[in-house]
């Protein structure tokens, strides 16, 4: 055994190599496990809002800011929307009378740190046709909402769009405090009513040309209605009628387009047609505003 010491060296080298091999395999497995874990957690990060709603009885709810209220409950394919009246009943007790409701479609709630992902989703939603998408940060979470509006019915066509594209969503209701300058109650009510009836886009002073351009690119109910409303406030009643009709082609159930149409006719002193128009609408749909306006006009006579 003259090569005993050489053999010992070879044995030690072999042991070391074997150790390094197993160590490397261990490290690779560890990396894979950690990588897989991170991947899974990242995949879970963009919480599907609707699924979260279903599981809400069993799982922990994300912290939602106090002034946000979820309205939609989705069970597999069925979607139930709580009527607007009910929401009023529930909320008016808890919240100040001096607040204004804003509705929007909420698509995503993610933890902070996934901003890039949310921005990508925002871009994708805008490309599909959703408007005014924005990111709002509350506490640990970032919320992605689109189509903020004062009128819940204005969301109908976007809800249909979301359903068609199979995108999970919920209707987000937000209460915005209205600054009251005078202490008189009637003035506050007036202000609130004014705020409700004013659409988001109008507040941003988008000019008519821009609106018409964007309508030609993506024709939809909201833009047509905005243009009609704009013409109506500028007393261009005939053009308002044309755009109200266009809006009506997209959504016949929405009272706003009918109202602008009728008001424009009324302004053009075609009272009979205006009233007939509102009556036709009331045969199919119910609207406080339409009914009140019709009563008001009938009383005027």
């Amino acid at each position, binding site marked *: *055994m003259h*090569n*005993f010491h050489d*053999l*010992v060296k*070879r*044995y030690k*080298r*072999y*042991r070391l*190599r074997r150790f390094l091999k197993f160590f490397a395999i261990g490290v690779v497995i560890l990396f894979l496990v950690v990588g897989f874990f991170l991947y899974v957690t990242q995949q879970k990060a963009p919480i599907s809002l609707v699924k979260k709603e279903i599981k809400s009885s069993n799982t922990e709810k994300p912290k939602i800011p106090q002034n946000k209220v979820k309205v939609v409950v989705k069970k597999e394919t069925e979607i139930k929307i709580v009527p607007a009246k009910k929401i009023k009943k529930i909320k008016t007790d808890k919240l100040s009378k001096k607040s204004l409701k804003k509705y929007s479609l909420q698509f995503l709630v993610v933890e902070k740190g996934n901003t890039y992902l949310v921005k990508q989703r925002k871009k994708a939603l805008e490309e599909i046709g959703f408007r005014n998408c924005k990111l709002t940060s509350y506490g640990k979470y970032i919320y992605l909402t689109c189509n903020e509006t004062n009128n819940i019915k204005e969301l109908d066509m976007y809800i249909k769009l979301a359903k068609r594209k199979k995108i999970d969503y919920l209707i987000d209701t937000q209460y915005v405090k209205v600054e009251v300058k005078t202490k008189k109650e009637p003035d506050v009510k007036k202000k609130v009513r004014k705020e409700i009836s004013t659409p988001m886009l109008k507040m941003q002073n988008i000019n008519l040309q821009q609106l018409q351009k964007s309508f030609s690119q993506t024709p939809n109910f909201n833009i047509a209605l905005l243009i009609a409303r704009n013409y109506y406030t500028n007393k261009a009643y005939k053009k308002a009628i044309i755009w109200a009709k266009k809006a009506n082609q997209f959504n016949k159930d929405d009272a706003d387009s009918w109202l602008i149409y009728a008001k424009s006719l009324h302004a053009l002193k075609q009272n009979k047609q205006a009233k007939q128009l509102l009556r036709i609408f009331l045969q199919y749909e119910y609207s406080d505003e339409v009914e009140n306006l019709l009563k008001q006009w009938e009383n005027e006579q």
Partner: protein
Amino acid sequence: MDYLELAQCFEERISSGYYHQNSEVIHIKNKIESIIDNDTKQLLFLTGEPGVGKSAFLNYLDGKFSYDIIKFDIPFLEPIDFVKILIKKTGSEVDNYSLEELIKQVISLYKNSNYIVVLDEAQLLSKDMIEIIRILADSKAFWFLLAMHKHESQKILKEPQFASRPHKVIQLQNISLDECKEYIYTELEKKDATLLANTITGKYIKYIHKLTQGNMRMLKKLLYTSFLLIDYAQKNNEDRYKSFDKCILTMAAIEIGLINA
């Protein structure tokens, strides 16, 4: 404990006196015996991996059957020499120098006798030798037992002269874990090394079997080298390597080439 003496008991030996009869060997022996007793004279092929113990098995067969065994260990034979040897084994004189006449003579000499002609390393036989074996086997004067490596046997058995003739293939397998354990313990007990046998626990047996894959030649070589290493360590005060353990087995495996290090 004299580890040098223990090493010697695992040395490769040809003598049948040292042959370890495990269950596989007994099974193969019984199988051959059954064929010889019940079938007509024909070719028998004993195949197996190199080192599985084919040569040792052939040596072990001598005297185990009612038939006499004529064994040829050297495969590089000329057909004429092969026939002459067979004639001389009977005590007869070679009458003629023509191969054809010699074949006739050898067939007539062995026709009513009970002989098994055993050829080791048959995969090395020349084509002429194979042809002579085929002619002699056809004469039904002999049993032929040809031992060859498993890999080469597959090619030889596909040759038309064998494929078309009655023959039997018997395969000698590598030993199992239990047979490996039984062999090591038996050999150690023969040398009164029961204490050492008790220290060779199941995990060492498993490691030995894993390293050697149950190949008898490698198993003997591994144990032989292991005991030599311990012997060297004891004589040179290498304290770390004085006892039988996994370290010694790994070193021995490196030494004999079972582990590439």
